[in-house]
């Protein structure tokens, strides 16, 4: 029977992992006849099916103020408790309104009871769900115990209570096996593994009139080898390994293109990479000022491209991450049938590698052998196509929408 499903998160806007994965779930729910509605603090969803409550955004100034007072310290003041409760109280009133307005039958909590970037939202949700017993699916992307920045805190009580809460009306889904094990160990609750997926059933977009000039726009020559690092510049992405790879290649045609900038995590790592690239004599370009969530013009009238405008041009994708919750960029590379250099981060080793993907792998550091492998792949078209096609087909089987649909139906049936 068709249900009204209310997605709840701190943000549904742009191309962050949570927003994208929620979209995919919503698509599957929609195809199964359900109606999707959205509650968040930032929103690019249609107004008639969404409710935007700015206080629910993790970047809301009061929440930032609360965060300043609860992380990195072990004691909080009464005033901070008051403000957490006050904000939680208000958010709970808006959750009630959301459920009432859209006659929500089932709640899907997207990471808001997982990573405590917005403690009052977690408190509000937990209380609200305890009071209403609404059937709820928690879609967990990354838990606080996976991030060192949350390890010293003054909100252990709230973390135990809400991140995640374990109410009888809740079902938990996680995106990798390690998370499943940790959730069971720490909270004594079972969960369903629902890996991130991609629309492998559909053909990827290619080079068109809009993006045909991208290589020229960023100053690449026809003969240049476009090595794409499709991530933000944060330390856990291990981008120094991509620089090392390009240096070992020893081919001046190799250009390392980084799609995004440091975001809100500071410029120190980026500056270090720029220095390292210069010292290594490689050509590294950060093109974040030309990348947007949508195709548009910037303030200077220049074309802005999406990440999907870059992939078709890339010759190789580097993904030397030290840690990933899953690895969406990896799926994207499979989707665009691009060869990938990957570091064997834990989730990859446990969840993805056993499926049999054909990749250039490194294990913590880049070897000459890995560089030779990349060189071979780039210069042998048949081997390259065999490799990318294998990956595409495997990904389609394990990480396509059909796989997601099967898992979600099973979760919904259990509610």
């Amino acid at each position: 029977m068709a249900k009204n499903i209310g997605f709840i998160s701190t943000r549904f806007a742009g191309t962050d992992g949570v927003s994208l994965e929620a979209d995919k779930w919503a698509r599957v729910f929609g195809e199964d006849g359900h109606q999707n509605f959205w509650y968040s603090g930032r929103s690019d969803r249609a107004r008639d099916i969404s409710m935007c409550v700015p206080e629910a955004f993790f970047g809301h100034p009061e929440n930032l103020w609360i965060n300043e007072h609860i992380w990195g310290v072990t004691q909080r003041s009464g005033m901070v408790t008051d403000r957490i409760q006050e904000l939680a109280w208000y958010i709970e009133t808006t959750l009630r309104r959301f459920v009432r307005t859209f006659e929500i039958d089932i709640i899907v909590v997207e990471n808001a009871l997982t990573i405590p970037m917005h403690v009052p939202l977690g408190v509000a949700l937990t209380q609200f769900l305890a009071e209403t017993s609404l059937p709820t699916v928690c879609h967990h992307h990354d838990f606080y115990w996976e991030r060192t920045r949350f390890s010293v805190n003054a909100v252990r009580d709230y973390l135990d209570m809400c991140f995640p809460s374990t109410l009888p009306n809740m079902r938990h889904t996680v995106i990798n096996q390690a998370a499943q094990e940790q959730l069971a160990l720490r909270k004594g609750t079972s969960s369903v593994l629902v890996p991130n997926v991609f629309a492998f059933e559909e053909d990827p977009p290619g080079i068109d009139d809009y993006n045909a000039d991208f290589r020229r726009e960023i100053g690449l020559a026809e003969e240049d080898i476009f090595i794409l690092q499709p991530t933000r510049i944060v330390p856990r992405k291990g981008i120094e390994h991509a620089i090392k790879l390009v240096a070992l290649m020893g081919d001046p045609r190799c250009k390392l293109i980084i799609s995004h900038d440091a975001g809100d995590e500071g410029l120190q790592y980026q500056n270090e990479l720029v220095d390292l690239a210069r010292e290594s004599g490689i050509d590294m370009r950060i093109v974040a000022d030309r990348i947007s969530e949508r195709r548009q013009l910037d303030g200077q009238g220049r074309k802005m491209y999406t990440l999907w405008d870059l992939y078709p041009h890339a010759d190789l994708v580097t993904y030397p991450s030290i840690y990933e919750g899953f690895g969406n960029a990896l799926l994207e590379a499979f989707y665009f049938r691009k060869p990938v250099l990957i570091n064997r981060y834990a989730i990859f080793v446990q969840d993805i590698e056993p499926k049999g993907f054909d990749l250039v792998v490194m294990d913590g550091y880049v070897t000459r052998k890995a560089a030779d492998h990349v060189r071979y792949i780039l210069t042998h078209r048949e081997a390259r196509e065999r490799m990318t096609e294998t990956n595409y087909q495997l990904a389609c089987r394990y990480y396509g929408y059909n796989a997601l649909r099967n898992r979600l139906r099973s979760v919904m049936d259990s509610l």
Partner: protein
Amino acid sequence: MLKLVRRSTFQRMRRRLARLYGPERVDQLADRLYAMIGRYGVVADPNNNPKELWDERDAVLITYADMVQKKGERPLVSLKEFCDRRLRGAINTVHLLPFCPASSDGGFSVIDYREVAPEHGTWRDVQTLGQDYELMFDLVLNHCSRKSAYFKDFINGVLPGADFFIEPGEDWDISKVVRPRPWPLLTPIKRVDSETKVWTTFSDDQIDLNWACPDVLFEFLDILLFYIAKGARIVRLDAVAFLWKEPGTECIHLPQTHEVIKLIRDVLQTVAPEVIILTETNVPHQENISYFGRGDEAHMVYNFSLPPLLLHALLKEDTRVFGDWLAGLGETPAKCTYLNFTASHDGIGVRPLQGLVPDEEIDWLVTQTRERGGLVGMRSIEGGGERPYELNITYRDALDDSQDSRKGVARFLCSQTVAMSLKGVPALYFHSFVGTHNDQEGAAAGERRDINRKRWNKSELGELLDQTDNDHSVILNVLVSLLTRRGSHPAFHPDARQIVLETDRQILAFLRESLDRQERILCLFNFSSEPYPIDETWVRERLHGAAGDIRNMLLGSRMEFQDGRYQASPFQGFWMAASKEK
């Protein structure tokens, strides 16, 4: 947390929210407002009676954060050092003109309201300044920068920012909109998937905010509380007259605009009753003081008529227009007062002169300004042609005399003494304090108003002020001395009575009487470049028949009348009071 919110006040806020956003949304908005109370720790202390809003010791320095510059030193640190060394005792409040990251208009096109522009310093520097001085911040709430995150979200269709700006459709009648600028009201914008036009009252870099969207109200209430948490004692609502827009109206001074200010006042009354709202509405006097409401809107309004009327009177050496205006000012509502200033980062608006003096007099003032190296802003008028609306010149140079610099300095000091003697709180612009001349280079490189926005090199200014034989140090020392003396006289309490006296045309005289009526000061100024004989009997009568010595509190000395006369020098001022000594 126990929240002390008066039921009657909260009900009033609910009604205001209903009037602004409709009764159907009021429950949710009232919840939202209630949740804000106490944010950032801003909450009224139930154990403390709120302190008086103001007294005779209040005096404001108007300054840019980077007015004093030294390589390798954060300007906010340099500014505090300047205040500590040069102005201690004279001022107790610093109005930091906008110090947030901004993209144009001298900081009034704010990109991020919650950051201090790194080229000025840090929040810690602001708060350090706030340890020794009360702080006044601008809340630029009519518009924000095109480079702000709000506008980026608007372009990309991300809520809440997607509703933060005004896109008047074809059916909007904008024919009656009052325009303070000559350029187009609407600016074409490309959004992600469409093209639109947004409302831009001041420039295409300053996009007007849509206050009909409650998220804008709550965003700015949050900023307000944040500023208070950072030490703001006075909050200046910039260009607030234009806040609300409705089709088919003039889009200035709308009832909803007043309602928003009343709501802000209610919020402050609840969480921070010691914080003062100052409205900045550079419009004709009656419209300007409408922002006092019935004592339920601004605590303080700029006395915009003062700078041009005072300038006119001093240059014409004729106080009749000024005196009449002063006599007709009327009483302000309770707990309301004027911010008396003669100069600021903007020019001297001449609109207040209209209707009070013939147009030829305004043209004469324009000529005087140009002769003194100043510039003039013109505006288009209906039926073609242009009229002046703003004089751009330092107040010191506006009163200069090319033949006799001492006369110019005396006239300028007279102007400042008048302004600080009037009922209200005095505010002096940095360049008035140090007697800065016109910055012709700045104006040539930037905009017209930059003629009065010079940034001083710290060592250059220090050298000038350390010498005793130049006009800059003389002006500074006199003004500091006067303000310091002023602070010890309850007759200059902003609420103390002011009685304007009838005099000869070259004289301005008024009485100030302390709230307890124990002190009565006769403020008298010779606006003429000729000496003027002050009649002793007349003075004694004005001072309630005082029989003993008459002291001039400006100098702290006894007035020596000769044959019942005291010869006032050109542009000399007096604060006369009966001596308390027997």
